[in-house]
């Protein structure tokens, strides 16, 4: 078990390093000289060269890569070209919106999808199942930004219950902050919940067809007790897999949704940074997003071994 964990952690570090290399190389080949962008049309060759030296852009790529990584490890993410402030602070501030938004969406999506999926499977081929499947079909088909617009029309424009965009800041109070996050989180969560409910349903149905379910029933367990004690944990394995995969879609979705709702989160920051060729910010955020996805995959791997004893110990 411990050896397994050590192997996983080594794998995690190597994957992170590989991601950093990819991000760095992509940024290298992208057109656009940051120094030229910062100086604008008044740039003379001399000022340009001076700025490039100041930014360290004249050094060879491997040196810049090593510097970047070493600085990263020390928490120094560089200075934003456009904002002229440390990128670390900039990102940290934006994360106070994006992280709660992501967690809220995942919580919502799970809270909706798991019970519905389990219910549909338990009521297989009956009206409840059919109803849930129709709703999830709609949820799968509708893109989240379009869904966001519908929600705004209903809850902000028509009913006036929730703000249609912007963020008052956490200092405005938990209530106001969550009200601002509610519609974005729902827009992100519902399409994911639709898919997750389907996955849950089919995972539970698969598990219900297994021999050990018949054994459990032959022991005298009721249908409900069998579902609780023998089916759900077995069904969790594919569900956790999909939740891990959905996390990357959630991050991508957050970039769009933050722009739809004018939320000053990471998604909006990366959008603006790209538009302004603030490559240091773009590079750090992209690596951060990649790292998040990699960490989630790591967590999913660890979860697998917690759920399934067959994946612990012994084999390789």
């Amino acid at each position, binding site marked *: 078990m411990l050896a397994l964990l050590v192997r996983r952690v080594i794998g995690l570090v190597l994957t992170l390093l590989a991601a950093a290399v990819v991000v760095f190389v992509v940024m290298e080949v992208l057109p656009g000289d940051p120094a030229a962008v910062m100086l604008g049309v008044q740039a003379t060759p001399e000022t340009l060269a001076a700025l490039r030296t100041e930014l360290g852009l004249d050094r060879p790529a491997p040196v810049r890569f090593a510097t970047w990584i070493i600085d990263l490890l020390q928490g120094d993410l560089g200075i934003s070209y456009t904002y002229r402030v440390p990128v670390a602070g900039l990102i940290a501030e934006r994360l106070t919106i994006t992280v709660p938004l992501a967690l809220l969406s995942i919580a919502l999506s799970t809270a909706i999808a798991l019970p519905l999926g389990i219910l549909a499977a338990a009521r297989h081929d009956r009206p409840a199942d059919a109803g849930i499947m129709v709703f999830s079909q709609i949820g799968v088909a509708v893109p989240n930004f379009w869904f966001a617009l519908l929600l705004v029309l209903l809850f902000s424009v028509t009913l006036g219950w929730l703000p249609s965009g912007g963020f008052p800041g956490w200092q405005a109070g938990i209530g106001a902050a969550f009200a601002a996050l509610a519609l974005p989180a729902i827009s992100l969560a519902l399409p994911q919940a639709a898919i997750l409910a389907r996955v849950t349903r089919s995972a539970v149905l698969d598990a219900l067809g*297994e*021999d*050990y379910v*018949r*054994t*459990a*029933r*032959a*022991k*005298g*367990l*009721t*249908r409900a007790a069998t579902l609780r*004690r*023998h089916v759900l*944990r*077995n069904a969790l394995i594919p569900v956790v897999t999909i939740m891990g995969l959905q996390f990357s879609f959630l991050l991508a979705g957050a970039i769009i949704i933050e722009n739809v709702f004018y939320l000053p989160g990471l998604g909006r920051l990366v959008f603006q940074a790209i538009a302004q060729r603030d490559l240091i910010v773009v590079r750090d955020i992209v690596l951060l997003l990649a790292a998040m996805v990699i960490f989630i995959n790591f967590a999913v791997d660890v979860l697998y071994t917690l*759920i*399934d*004893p*067959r994946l612990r110990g012994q084999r390789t």
Partner: protein
Amino acid sequence: MTVLDVEDLRVDIRTPTGRLPIVRGVSFTLARGTTLGLVGESGSGKSMTALAIMRLLPQAADVSGAIRLHGEDLLQADETRMCRIRGDRIAMVFQEPMTALNPLHRIGDQIAETLVLHRDMARRAALDEAARLLDRVGIREAQARLSAYPHQLSGGQRQRVMIAMALACRPDVLIADEPTSALDVTVQAQVIDLLRSLVDEFGMALILISHDLGVIGRLADRVMVMYGGAIMEQGSTKAVFTTRAHPYTQGLFAALPGRGARKGRRLAAIPGTVPAPDALPAGCPFYGRCPRGQDVCRDNPPPVVEIGGSRAACFFPGP
């Protein structure tokens, strides 16, 4: 003393294209401490008969007849009552030891679950009892094995665990559906010996399902030969094995390995294949594969005739 009395058991499965008769009028009684062997080719309806007794048939199945356990008709019992009976009064061991245990739970917990459920035992006490059961079914270092997961056991050991689980509440009836068919020959013999000694010790009645006459011959007091969802022949093992009144029984014996067949050659199975439930003739199910079959067999249900202590459903029975 009769423990189980099955009368005119019928199982139909509803399909989009109509009703399939899977079990067609099976009747038998089972006395305490005796073993009934249920034999027949694959697809004869043996498992469906067993699942009907457990009331664990697929949802698309309709059952009729009577299944009396100590006089109580299980077909009239509601699901709550059945949950009390299953695992406590009637237990079942399945064919596939590889998949019949939950891969995510320790075997100790899986055995203890039955005791906690029916005996209202605390988990600790149930685990102690589980260890005694494991020891009884021949698992070495039972106490330590309680915390093993199914994948850490061999097929034979898993089947022993299944048997321990089924025996936990000392049921009146144990149904073992092909309990050794998935095991190697040496392990098969050990499990058969184990079942025999357990029947003697616990005094329960055993319904042993197998397509293997050898296994049936070693364990059963009475034999029921099944084909096409119906009983072809039944009687004491001695009578059925010596008289072989029914042409289907004769076919099964002729298909036994090691009889007049040269090594390496595929053995003489009964010619033809088991017909699908919707392709059965109106009369005798064996018509079409039976060397003695006449027109009368095709259109009329055969009479039950007693020969040499064995009862055969056939127009032209006899050795």
